[in-house]
């Protein structure tokens, strides 16, 4: 078998699995789970093979759509959409991350979903999601990436709305889909702008055009195009102001949150930025915007996370915050690998944290409020240890993966001091909210009956957690990171940098320890943060007063102009005309003769006039 077919197999195995599960999955639980896991594991094995054999850089390309046959312009190259795969260091790294994490989450799902309804639907959705995510990773042009980007949106909609019988879950799925559409509109506009300027949609060709100084005297155009493309990231990677969907999407099953909304789907936005990073380098204005959006997002989301009570929502806001770090990394670091490094470590430890959260939730009989938990350290020791590893990595304890990647981004942020301080303070906040979660859930008094009688999850759930825990600790160690990334040296390091990050960590963890060590309920209450800064309410009002008003106007137009004037109006006109003409039917033959004669006279007059 030709090695060039490997990417095709990696990509299409999950799709095939999804289709088969869709048709036959409902007859057999093991079939649906087995197929999905097999497709992911196959992809994982092949991805590792590709990763370890960097000589394979080519794959087949297909000219999928070529409009040259009916292209009316001679001076413009015809629009064509190839289906091609890109195999460079970052896509290899992403392949490995996505398929490995997907495999672990799929296996974990066996345990988590064993008693849930819609088993086959769930695994078909997971496989479809894996297919779309791999498509984004492999895409070598904007249109292909955009198509898979939308597919990711669809499959996340399916998975978030898994419990669609519950209103909140159905709404969350809808919201995720619609909010992403807003960002994608900008993304599409950006793609069109770039195509209009360069006449190509292939990343490498756009890059060449930009490198040859196509935009040398039109910086603003490139900046606008890049910012519009970045809108796609704002939607998919849940940056402010389109972050609202991510916490709500926690309505889905916890493995879904783990896979989609921590490790892979939201990473698609950052990956896309890394993919176009050489173009971004030519647009410093766009990078400033990106850095600021990331900086504000990471800070605001961390503030909101400090006051959430739902274990998954805390992690969701933490995800937004960490995505903010990655976007900041794209904005300030000289290479994309810095952001991708954090994406890589974050994928490991956040996936782990969600899996431990899922394990706790199953143990607690689907109770998600951390103030109903407590003192489950000894009852769920494996979950406790894994959560310890994940929490340590998230709060960037030295020698865990998060420490290496996050500190690197913060160090590079020194080029923009306000962002540096934001990132540093947020590092402390991160340690604080992680500590809060950790101490409240695992220590303190048991705060409900379930907490007193919970039990450890089965092996099928703990084994993936242990594997991820190893990754969460070790993924950042330099000798491992060097295999995946080419990390630059920090040339201008801020003074006392290590002391400052360590201080932030100690302050955050220490504060959380002192405040939440042994409490019955939350000692501090900041409604502004707990209510997510009222951004959700603001959007709800905007929808109510904006969209509903527009809807009213449109309904009026539909009722009176389209229906009234158009549909019913034409009928009315015909009826009235008939009524008027009916008066001519007077029943007198001579009158008819007269009308006839008069008509002839008028016709003759008109003819010889």
């Amino acid at each position, binding site marked *: 078998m030709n090695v060039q077919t490997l990417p095709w197999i990696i990509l299409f195995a999950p799709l095939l699995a999804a289709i088969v599960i869709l048709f036959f999955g409902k007859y057999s639980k093991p079939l649906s789970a087995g197929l999905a896991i097999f497709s992911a594991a196959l992809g994982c094995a092949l991805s590792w093979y590709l990763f370890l054999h960097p000589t394979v850089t080519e794959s087949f390309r297909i000219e999928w759509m070529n409009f040259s046959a009916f292209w009316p312009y001679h001076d413009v190259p015809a629009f064509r959409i190839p289906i091609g795969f890109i195999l460079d260091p970052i896509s290899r790294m992403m392949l490995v991350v996505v398929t490995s994490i997907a495999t672990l989450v799929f296996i974990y799902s066996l345990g988590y979903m064993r008693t849930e309804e819609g088993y086959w639907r769930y695994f078909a959705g997971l496989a479809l999601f894996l297919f779309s995510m791999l498509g984004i990773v492999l895409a070598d042009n904007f249109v292909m990436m955009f198509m898979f980007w939308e597919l990711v949106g669809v499959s996340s909609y399916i998975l978030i709305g898994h419990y669609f019988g519950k209103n909140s879950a159905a709404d969350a799925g809808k919201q995720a889909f619609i909010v992403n559409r807003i960002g994608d509109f900008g993304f599409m506009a950006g793609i069109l702008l770039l195509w209009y300027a360069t006449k190509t949609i292939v990343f490498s060709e756009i890059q060449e055009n930009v490198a040859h100084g196509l935009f040398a005297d039109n910086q603003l155009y490139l900046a606008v195009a890049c910012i519009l493309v970045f809108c796609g990231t704002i939607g998919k990677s849940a940056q402010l102001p389109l972050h609202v969907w991510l916490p709500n999407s926690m309505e889905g099953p916890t493995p879904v949150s783990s896979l989609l909304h921590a490790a892979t789907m939201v990473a698609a936005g950052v990956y896309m930025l890394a993919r176009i990073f050489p173009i971004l380098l030519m647009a410093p204005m766009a990078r400033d915007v990106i850095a600021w959006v990331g900086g504000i997002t990471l800070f605001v989301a961390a503030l909101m996370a400090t006051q959430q009570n739902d274990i998954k929502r805390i992690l969701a806001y933490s995800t937004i915050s960490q995505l903010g770090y990655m976007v900041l990394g794209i904005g300030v670091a000289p290479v994309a690998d810095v952001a991708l490094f954090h994406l890589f470590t974050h994928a490991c430890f956040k996936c782990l944290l969600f899996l431990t959260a899922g394990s706790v939730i199953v143990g607690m009989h689907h109770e998600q409020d951390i103030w109903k938990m407590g003192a489950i350290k000894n009852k769920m020791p494996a979950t406790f240890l894994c959560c310890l590893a994940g929490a340590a990595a998230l709060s960037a304890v030295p020698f865990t993966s998060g420490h290496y990647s996050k500190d690197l981004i913060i160090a590079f942020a020194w080029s923009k001091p306000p962002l540096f301080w934001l990132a540093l303070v947020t590092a402390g906040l991160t340690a604080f909210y992680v500590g809060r979660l950790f101490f409240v859930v695992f220590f303190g008094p048991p705060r409900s009956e379930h907490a007193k009688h919970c039990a450890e999850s089965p092996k099928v759930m703990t084994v993936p957690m242990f594997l991820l825990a190893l990754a969460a600790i070790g993924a950042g160690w330099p000798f491992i990171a060097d295999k995946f990334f080419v990390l630059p040296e920090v040339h201008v390091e801020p003074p006392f940098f290590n002391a400052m990050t360590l201080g932030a960590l100690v302050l955050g963890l220490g504060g959380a320890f002192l405040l939440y060590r042994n409490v019955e309920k939350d000692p501090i209450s900041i409604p502004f943060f707990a209510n997510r800064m009222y951004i959700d309410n603001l959007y709800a009002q905007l929808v109510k007063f904006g969209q509903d008003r527009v809807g009213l106007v449109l309904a009026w137009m539909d009722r009176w102009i389209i229906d009234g004037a158009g549909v019913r109006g034409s009928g009315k006109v015909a009826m009235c005309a008939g009524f008027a003409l*009916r*008066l001519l*039917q*007077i*029943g*007198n*033959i*001579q009158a008819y*003769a*007269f009308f006839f*004669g008069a008509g002839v006279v008028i016709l003759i007059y008109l003819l010889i006039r």
Partner: protein
Amino acid sequence: MSPSLGDYLFVSGLLFAIGLAGVLLRRNILIIFMCLELMLNAANLSLVAFSRYNLTDLGLPNFNAQVFVFFIITVAAAEVAVGLAIIVALYRARRTTHVEDLNRMKF
């Protein structure tokens, strides 16, 4: 002084006008029918007159018009047969030939 084309056409027009007036004003459906025939014959008269006064290159009348007149007479004969049959049937059904009484077909 032999009559000119204008004289013929005048007579033809007069006949047509009389026929039309009869059709529009008389009440008896038989009279109306006869007036219709009068209008047809007015047309015939003008056709024949045209034939007589539009000589061809050989000095002969234009026989097209006269052939046309024969056609009209033939068709009129057939039409009279049908029309009279309808009138007879109408009279049998309604016991009247006055158009004022034949006004059922109206709104």
